[in-house]
């Protein structure tokens, strides 16, 4: 999985609780992305980062926030989890020098009850 780890790999939480997912890379890539994967929707971009402290919104950013204080770590936070955020979350990285290829982590399965 291209030097990408995600933690936790599985999490069950209750509606209304905050949740933070972590993506860690060892590739020193500039770009990092958070996607969610749901049946019938493919993968949809939540937020992305183009450098330390530089982030921007994706297609489905409502209810999510992100932070990147170090090159290697990109955190996704659900401030108050809802059942509609039950999904599989994938982190991806891209080397700005190899402009196009994105490589994905193993994913985190989140269930909000």
């Amino acid at each position, binding site marked *: *999985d291209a030097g*990408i780890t995600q933690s936790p790999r599985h999490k069950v939480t209750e509606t209304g609780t905050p949740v933070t997912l972590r993506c860690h890379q060892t590739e020193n890539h500039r770009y990092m*992305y958070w996607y969610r994967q749901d049946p*019938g*929707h*493919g*993968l*949809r*971009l939540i937020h*992305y980062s183009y450098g330390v402290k530089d982030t921007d919104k*994706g*297609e489905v950013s409502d209810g999510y926030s992100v932070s990147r204080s170090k090159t290697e770590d990109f955190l996704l936070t659900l401030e108050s989890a809802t059942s509609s955020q039950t999904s599989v979350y*994938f982190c991806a990285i*891209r080397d700005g020098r190899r*402009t*196009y*290829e*994105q*490589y*994905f*982590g*193993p*994913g985190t399965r989140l269930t909000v009850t």
Partner: protein
Amino acid sequence: QQQVKQSPQSLIVQKGGIPIINCAYENTAFDYFPWYQQFPGKGPALLIAIRPDVSEKKEGRFTISFNKSAKQFSLHIMDSQPGDSATYFCAASKNTDKLIFGTGTRLQVFP
């Protein structure tokens, strides 16, 4: 909005067959078209990608055909094997930016 439409949703072929998965896009500014392969419980893995300046690209048993005028591209898997059974996603992006994914095709290859 669905900017990349993928079909079929599922596909069943016999070993040795040539499954074909199709994608259509709307935004003519897209300039990068990758295909990803995903096995259950794993993250998507980049399989092959094409830029719009070529009409075909082959890597091993996998071929992308690209039709710029029709705004369509497709994945062909030659001599398919049971190990190719997976979900395949097409995607598109412009200017090295955010990827827009299709909804996926579940391929089953039977011995």
